[in-house]
């Protein structure tokens, strides 16, 4: 056994071989972003945006939310968020937004020298209302126009007038991209991109579902890293290639009975975005105590794919029905479903101070989920990028109290 593999063997968790492929793919994504920007064809885009449309129209895309995760992982969140705070943005605002604004102000002081300059900013409010205001701020700094793809929050079944309104948004988007980037829309090309996107999502979903096995082949940190292409390369061959490789590895682990962590004892659900600045320390610390997270609500957010005779209608349906856009009830349902399907013993809800849409209401959902599933849960509070808002000792005490219930 090679020395490196031996060292990995000794660790409480197993590294994924596909991580190196992931790095290569993400590096390519970064280079493509720079090239698109230089050619005047780059849009910054939110994670819930119908990316298939700009991709089908030949527009390059970069995801500032993902860049926020990079800033968090490199542990420079407080410094980069601080740049935005110096500009007058409150520390109470979303730290993805703050770090992105801060990095746009001082790219030279930011990881990877900031994101390449955008020529348009595409925001979809199916994840939150913050994205529009964040992109407005970036627009003031870069001069790139903002387009809002408005998907008003739904209650229950999507109504015909909601569908019609969002349909008009699609039309408006096509017009906007055609004018801004001097490009044209072809349904045929959208179908191709939609197929690739569907394939990627399907492979990713199979990787996630493999975690129903005991031991779970993936832990939280694995999924949070591996989700990068589903967020930023949806609709491309690269994403399909990556998820094929990942699925192969995951299925291999399942076949051999190998878990993501060495000694799986407790299976928990993770809710919300992770604390990027301590992602390995945090989840591996728990892995050492036999805690694995076979499922989480965040990486399960990408599920629908474009299909059917009316592709525009499919865009309307998939992107309006993201569960964050459906409110508390849908989120509670999702959590209960995951707890049941993945045979989980309990759950941890990370109350991200930055993110009201995702986090506000967790005190209530915790009670509802406990009531419905009978498993215990805990809410811990912090932030995903801004480590100043993360009180490690307090969080550990809460988690200890939860884990004691399983002994």
């Amino acid at each position, binding site marked *: 056994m090679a020395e490196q593999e031996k060292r990995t063997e000794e660790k409480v968790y197993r590294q994924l071989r596909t991580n190196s492929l992931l790095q290569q793919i993400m590096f390519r994504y970064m280079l493509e972003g720079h090239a698109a920007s230089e050619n005047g064809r780059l849009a910054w885009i939110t994670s819930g945006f119908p990316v298939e449309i700009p991709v089908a129209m030949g527009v390059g895309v970069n995801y500032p939310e993902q860049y926020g995760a990079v800033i968090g992982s490199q542990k420079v969140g407080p410094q980069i968020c601080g740049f935005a705070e110096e500009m007058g943005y409150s520390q109470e605002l979303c730290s993805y937004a703050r770090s992105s604004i801060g990095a746009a102000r001082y790219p030279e002081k930011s990881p990877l020298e900031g994101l390449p300059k955008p020529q348009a900013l595409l925001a979809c409010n199916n994840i939150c*209302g913050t994205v529009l205001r964040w992109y407005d701020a970036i627009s003031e700094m870069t001069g790139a126009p903002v387009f809002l793809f408005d998907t008003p929050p739904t209650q229950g079944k999507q109504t015909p007038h909601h569908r019609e309104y969002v349909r008009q948004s699609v039309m408006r988007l096509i017009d906007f991209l055609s004018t801004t980037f001097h490009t044209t829309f072809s349904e045929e090309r959208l179908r191709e991109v939609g197929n690739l996107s569907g394939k990627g999502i399907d492979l990713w979903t199979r990787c996630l579902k493999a975690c129903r096995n005991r031991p779970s082949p993936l832990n939280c940190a694995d999924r949070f890293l591996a989700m990068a292409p589903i967020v930023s390369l949806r609709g491309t061959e690269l994403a399909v290639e990556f998820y094929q490789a990942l699925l192969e590895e995951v299925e291999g682990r399942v076949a051999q009975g190998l878990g993501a962590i060495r000694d799986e004892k407790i299976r928990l659900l993770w809710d919300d975005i992770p604390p990027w600045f301590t992602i390995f320390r945090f989840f591996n610390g728990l892995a050492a105590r036999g805690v694995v997270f076979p499922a989480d609500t965040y990486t399960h957010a990408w599920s629908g794919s474009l299909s059917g005779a009316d592709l525009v209608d499919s865009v309307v349906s998939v992107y309006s029905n993201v569960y964050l856009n459906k409110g508390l009830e849908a989120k509670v349902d999702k959590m209960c479903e995951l707890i049941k399907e993945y045979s989980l013993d309990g759950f941890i809800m990370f109350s991200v101070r930055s993110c009201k849409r995702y986090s506000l209401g967790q005190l209530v959902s915790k009670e509802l989920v406990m009531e419905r599933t009978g498993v215990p849960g805990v809410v811990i509070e912090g932030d995903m990028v801004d480590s100043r808002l993360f009180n490690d000792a307090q969080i550990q005490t809460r988690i200890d109290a939860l884990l004691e219930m399983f002994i």
Partner: protein
Amino acid sequence: MSYEQATIQSNSQGFRLGVAEKLTLGYIYPHAPVEIIMAHGFVPSLVRARPGVVGAFEASLQTFACSYTRNLFSQRANDQLPPLAALLFPGNTCDSLLNVGDIWRVRFPDDTVFRLTYPAANQGEAGVHFLAEEIRSLSNMLEKAFGLPFSLSEFEEAASLTRQFRESIQFLYASRAILPQVLPYSKLAALIHTFLMSPDQKSVTEVVRAASQAQRSLAKSKSLEPINRIRQQLLKGHLTRLTFAHDTDSPRIAVAGGMIDPGALVALLSAAGISENALVIDLLTFGFKTAFTRPCDMEGDPFESVARSILSSPLEPTQEGLEMRLSFVRDILTNLAIDGLVICEQSFCDPDEFEAPSLEAAASKSGVVVLRLPIDPELSDRERLGVRLQSFLETIKSRNQR
């Protein structure tokens, strides 16, 4: 019945009925379809945050819920809300209110809670159609829940009331923009407050009377013509260069922000010993933005006409178009000879806190000094805020003397 006088009648078994005879439907976001609500025989009444509420939200809301929603929730948890038959939450206006609406339903399952969702994009007719259908479905729900059908004659009556209210209040706003001494700001705020709390003939008559008085007192001055011009331009959302006589000795400030209670501003000014005449115009949700909504058209489909009226409100309720909003604010600052802009920010309010730096930059570029004021319904930092306002006014005065 005014907000403060309202008898505390709600309880943990759900909302109770409102004032005698009519049911009260409480709403939180002022761009509510009041004419439609009234056409169902309800009294639409704005439910506002208010000072002196003991926090009772901790078991349901995290501390990063905005101070406004925390206050509302605490009022409900403490049984301090005025009597309501139902409560209307907005959707797609901000994340805090959207989530709190959901939490409310879980925590107070006996309350009748509705949601009206607004378009956030400036999507023209598609937005009007969407909102019209949302309002229509609210109307159906009201009928289903309370057995009170929509009445066209009551709608027409309500539309005529709101028209009278808006015309008069707009005149008063425009008058104060030139001659703030024509009406104390506290009086203007109280008139709006009373109407939003209980839009009836009595509250409208008060506003109409105040506008007529102002008109009479201005008749001899040469101000009526520019006042009417300003009113029209404010309605259109675009001001052009205006020349009007005003007192150059006293500072002229504008106040911007979202769901800040004009009454809280009055309290701050008075605690700081600052004349209300200094406050020339507010650009707040419960003030200017509600007042300058265009009246709804009596012709055609009532739902569409109310939707069109709501969407005509300046600076709200759609969220897209920061540049348009800033350009309107710049217009106001430069053409109404404003010396200083106070930007109020409700704590943990994304819309306020995101927009404040842009507003600050726009004002500074127009040569207007800026004060950013974090504010919450409890006015917990009243003294310090007062001192900051005083020194802000001093800065303006010394600038003007130079």
